């Protein structure tokens, strides 16, 4: 049976995540040379099995960036963009580079992997600093295809009894374009609870 967070633990954890979202939107602004406002964001906590079941039949095409950490706190991070969203964000970053990034063999793969990395690092920084630990993420892995497959390839192997997914939905807009991205963090609930207690936050 999946362990769950207490209300106090949930409040602290969601506070870290929301601080991370604010930091990530600032970083996206620097990358695209535009100010991004968070139109809406939501944080939900769900078991891995439920996420996979919800999206089992979902063939909406997505572009995912998968990052993981095998340090003290194992974490999996998946950022999901729609294909159109990935194209728009890539276009904005390439334009902000003055065209330098057009020279790359596959600009979209390179740009969206790095955007995913930078956005994921923003949320992980808030979490790591809050828990007084360090997390070093892997190199980003780009996944493309139906959303159900992208989810299975990144978080499908996790322990449905032990791990929880913190699912974030972020909608942002800038004067140039509006874009959204989803982020899933897979965490071991028992381990997070211990770290919160060690950091005397729960």
């Amino acid at each position: 049976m999946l362990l769950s967070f207490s209300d106090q633990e949930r409040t602290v954890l969601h506070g870290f995540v929301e601080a991370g979202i604010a930091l990530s939107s600032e970083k996206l602004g620097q990358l695209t040379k535009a100010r991004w406002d968070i139109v809406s964001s939501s944080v939900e906590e769900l078991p891995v099995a439920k996420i996979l079941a919800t999206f089992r039949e979902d063939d909406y095409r997505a572009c995912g960036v998968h990052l993981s950490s095998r340090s003290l706190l194992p974490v999996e991070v998946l950022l999901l963009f729609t294909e159109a969203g990935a194209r728009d964000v890539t276009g904005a970053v390439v334009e902000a580079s003055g065209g330098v990034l057009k020279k790359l063999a596959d600009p979209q793969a390179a740009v969206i992997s790095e955007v995913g990395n930078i956005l994921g690092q923003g949320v992980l920084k808030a979490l790591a600093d809050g828990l007084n630990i360090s997390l070093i993420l892997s190199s980003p892995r780009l996944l493309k295809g139906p959303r159900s497959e992208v989810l299975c390839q990144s978080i499908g192997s996790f322990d449905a009894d032990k791990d929880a997914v913190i699912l974030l939905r972020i909608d942002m807009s800038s004067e140039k374009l509006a874009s959204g991205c989803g982020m899933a963090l897979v965490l071991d609930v028992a381990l997070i609870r211990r770290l919160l207690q060690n950091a005397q936050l729960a």
Partner: protein
Amino acid sequence: MSLRVLVVDDSSMYRELLKVMLEGLGHTLVGEAETGADAVAQFASAKPDLVTLDISLPDMDGLAVLREIRRSNPRAKVILVTGNDQGKIVAQARTLGALALLVKPFHVEQLEDALKKAA
């Protein structure tokens, strides 16, 4: 002063951006590495004046690469260029002898300031 620089980053986007920025500032790129093992090998062969080093690499983390490079040459000049500016990582990088930590995304002026510490 013009520096001979080795760029270590798994991201082709940042290798390209750093190359253009460094050359624009009058420095010379003497190598690019995508992995930690390649970075250590190129550091030994190219003997750069400065290394820009990412923390997330496919085979080993950047702090381990920094440790290796500083072990082979305790005077090696290394700037970390990373999206990871967690408090504990920054402290560890300083302990290991990194000259500066440049947080992605950054502007050319911020790179220039970091390079002044190495010149």
